[in-house]
């Protein structure tokens, strides 16, 4: 008996029909649903060579040939269990004689990948983002300054983080509660220096769900909106104003970085099921025009935050305060010209309307958030 663990659903229809799985030592398997046994799903399972699996994931070979044309004959029938591992029972007859195999011609995708980003997304069965940094030192040869690359990736990750936060805030509270979002905004570098211009490939740090959907998609769709009209400052200004808050602030900092470092940026991202990647680009010159246009708008990066909780500390002289909310204790300051803390009672329950501002620290690679109280009332 072998134990295998499903790692991703490759095809779903009234249940996970085609599944990728691994054994305890990292061997690759493909599992295809057959007739269930009672209440349990049942799969025909074959160990497959990683390269052939990649070809199947890219849509280049069909499922039947992936399963039948292998260097070994062993195959299994597995039933789903109560835990993450499936028990796979070895079968003695040849797999080709099994009556419940996929027919010829089942390709995972309708067309071969049209771009490198899409090829990577399919091969990794995950959302992939390809970033090309157009730094001056990259023009003649495949090189980039360490600081430029490090800062670019940091700024990009911060934009994605706030784009994800902004996208989540548009969801109903019930939907938000159901999403495991602890690391959903994170990107991992998986190809740090691909051939071509200075190209980096990143992958969602969190695997897609069993329907193949990545949480990170919400963030990148939001980010795309900001880069949609990069050569038109007025349109972009309107779009950034619509995203006023931390996302706008992070976008502004990324643009300033591009200008200061004299770097243009191109990116493309794709999920495995896309027909085409979604691509955006901004030149150093366009980034400069946008920085100028955005500099005339005040408080673009400040995010309104409402807090309700018991007042734990209030210093009328220094203007600092601390409030115990459901989500934990939050501390902040008064904005010059803002309301006074005089008259508030410790342990009283208040609603604080604040503006949260982010300041860059450590050369722009860290963020420090400060809450400024704008209004307060008993709650």
């Amino acid at each position: 008996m072998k134990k295998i663990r499903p790692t991703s659903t490759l095809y779903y229809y009234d249940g996970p029909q085609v599944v990728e799985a691994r054994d305890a030592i990292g061997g690759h398997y493909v599992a295809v649903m057959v007739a269930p046994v009672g209440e349990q799903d049942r799969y025909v399972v074959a160990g497959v060579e990683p390269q052939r699996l990649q070809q199947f994931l890219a849509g280049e070979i069909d499922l039947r040939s992936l399963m039948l044309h292998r260097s070994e004959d062993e195959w299994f029938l597995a039933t789903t269990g109560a835990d993450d591992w499936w028990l796979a029972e070895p079968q003695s007859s040849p797999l080709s004689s099994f009556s419940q195999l996929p027919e010829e011609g089942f390709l995972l995708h309708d067309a071969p990948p049209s771009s490198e980003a899409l090829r990577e997304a399919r091969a990794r069965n995950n959302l992939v983002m390809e970033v090309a940094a157009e730094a001056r030192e990259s023009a003649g040869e495949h090189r980039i300054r360490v600081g430029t690359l490090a800062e670019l990736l940091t700024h990009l990750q911060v934009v994605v983080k706030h784009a994800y936060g902004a996208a989540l805030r548009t969801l109903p509270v019930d939907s938000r509660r159901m999403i495991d979002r602890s690391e959903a905004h994170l990107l991992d570098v998986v190809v740090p220096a691909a051939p071509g211009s200075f190209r980096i490939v990143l992958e969602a740090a969190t695997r897609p769900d069993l329907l193949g959907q990545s949480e990170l998609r919400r963030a990148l769709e939001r980010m795309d909106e900001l880069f949609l009209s990069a050569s038109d400052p007025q349109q972009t200004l309107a779009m950034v104003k619509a995203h006023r808050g931390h996302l706008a602030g992070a976008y502004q900092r990324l643009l300033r970085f591009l200008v200061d470092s004299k770097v243009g940026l191109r990116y493309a991202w794709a999920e495995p099921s896309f027909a085409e990647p979604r691509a955006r680009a901004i030149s150093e010159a366009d980034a400069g025009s946008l920085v100028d246009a955005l500099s005339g708008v005040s408080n673009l990066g400040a995010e309104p935050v409402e807090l309700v909780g018991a007042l734990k500390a209030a210093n009328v002289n220094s203007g600092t305060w601390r409030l115990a909310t459901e989500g934990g204790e939050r501390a902040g300051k008064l904005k010059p010209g803002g309301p006074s803390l005089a008259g508030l009672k410790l342990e009283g329950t208040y609603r604080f309307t604040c503006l949260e501002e982010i300041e860059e620290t450590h050369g722009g690679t860290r963020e420090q958030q400060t809450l400024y109280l704008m209004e307060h009332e008993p709650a």
Partner: protein
Amino acid sequence: MNYREPLPDGCPPPESDEVAGPLVVFRLVRSSPPSLDDFRSQRAERPSAAFRGVSECVARGLSVYKRVTDCDKTRKLPQFQGRFICQVYLEAGAGRIQQTGRPTHYTWWPLAAFEILGHCEAVAP
């Protein structure tokens, strides 16, 4: 709203769309003409099964496609070999629908009052 099958709280998800006008979807069915058994969810088929990685809400919905070619492709899989394709004409009152997984795959939560079989038509093999 009264759905055809009991659904958990928050299901269908708020981000699903209410079917407001004519919409054609395709579903694989065991018989032609189809029967209501062809429109039972995974949960209704197997009440005590554990569907790992699939939310209870999706397990209580029906898989449908917006392209008939996706049904043709799915028929190559062991579970669906020999099945028929049914074209379902959805309209206001059909329930809610949401794109889940691949771009052309949708989960449909039919309303109890929607007369499914009267809106079905077999697609020529």
